[in-house]
Each structure stands twice: as structure tokens, then as C-alpha cells.
């Protein structure tokens, strides 16, 4: 990953308290896993921003290197990598996600 891509990703993850790198957009997810994450965050009533990795090949690969995580979607909270679809689903089902996100966005 070049330093420009690295800097763009760093800026993106800090651009919103909850940032999602996904395939497609909130309204038109292009992948079932990305859709899962959007639906969960919507269900919790969270405000979040998304970046469509299908629109940018450098970010698509770069974000995987950035977090050492090989798949999309990727969810960042206050700049910290939180997980992908499986982890978000698990945390949502246990109630942990609601609790943690409410604290995170309030701070």
C-alpha cells in the first residue's frame, strides 16, 4: 500500500464515529455481508458513514492491509477496527453492540 492510500484510509476511518467500508451503498448494498452490517446499524438507529470499495480499487485492497483483515465489510468505531459481518452479527445478537456503540458515539 502506498503512503497516499494509507493516508486516505486513515482520514476515512476518522471521518465519522462509525465508518463502514462496504461493497455498494447503504441504499444498494452489493453483497450480502455488507447488507448485514447496514441492516444491523440501521436497526440500532446508529448514524454511520460508508465508503463503497467497489468504487476504488486502491482503497479496496488497502483497507485489508490496513487492518490485517482479508474481507469486506469492515466496521471502524472512533478509528478502531471493530470487525466484519460475523463479529457485528454476534455482538448485535448478544446486545453488546448496542451498548458499546452508544457509549462510543456519546464520547
Amino acid at each position, binding site marked *: 500500500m502506498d503512503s497516499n492510500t494509507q493516508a486516505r484510509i486513515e482520514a476515512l476511518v476518522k471521518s465519522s464515529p462509525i465508518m463502514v467500508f462496504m461493497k455498494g451503498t447503504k441504499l444498494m448494498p452489493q453483497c450480502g455481508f455488507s447488507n448485514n452490517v447496514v441492516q444491523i446499524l440501521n436497526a440500532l438507529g446508529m448514524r454511520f458513514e460508508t465508503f463503497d470499495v467497489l468504487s476504488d480499487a486502491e482503497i479496496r485492497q488497502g483497507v485489508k492491509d490496513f487492518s*490485517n*483483515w*482479508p*474481507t469486506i465489510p469492515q466496521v471502524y468505531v472512533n478509528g478502531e477496527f*471493530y470487525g466484519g*459481518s*460475523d*463479529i457485528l452479527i454476534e455482538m448485535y445478537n448478544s446486545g453488546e453492540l448496542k451498548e458499546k456503540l452508544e457509549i462510543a458515539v456519546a464520547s
Partner: protein
Amino acid sequence: MVQFDSVKEAIRQALPDAEVSVEDLTGGGDHLQVNVVSSQFAGLSRVRQHQLVYGALKDQLATEAIHALALTTATPE
């Protein structure tokens, strides 16, 4: 398309005590649900647990032999 045994084998190379189950989500052999139970996950965050499994399957993910992977990880009861 990937041999499920090779998935299990790759995970056990990284996590020798792992109990691994593999399900085919679509019948196409490349959208998999993988469940891994290993004592080596103890004390690690979920992100770290998943990273260990992803690391073990790096080659199979990179070649798209596995196109989509749903993963759960746990420690033994």
C-alpha cells in the same frame, strides 16, 4: 471450490487443537460457514481470533478458492 478437508487441515496447522466444522452455504463449494473451537482463542478479542483463522486460510482466500467465509470462533466449554 475447495476441499473441506483442506480447509480443516489448514486451520489445524495453525491451531492444532481446533475442532473445525465446515458447511457449504450455497452448494457451490466456495461460500462456506466455518466454525472453529480452540483453546488458543482464550483471552483473545474476537478480531484476533478471526485473524488467526483468516491467516490460516490466507492462500485459499487469496485465490478465491473460498469466495465467501462466514466464521464463528469459540473456546472449549
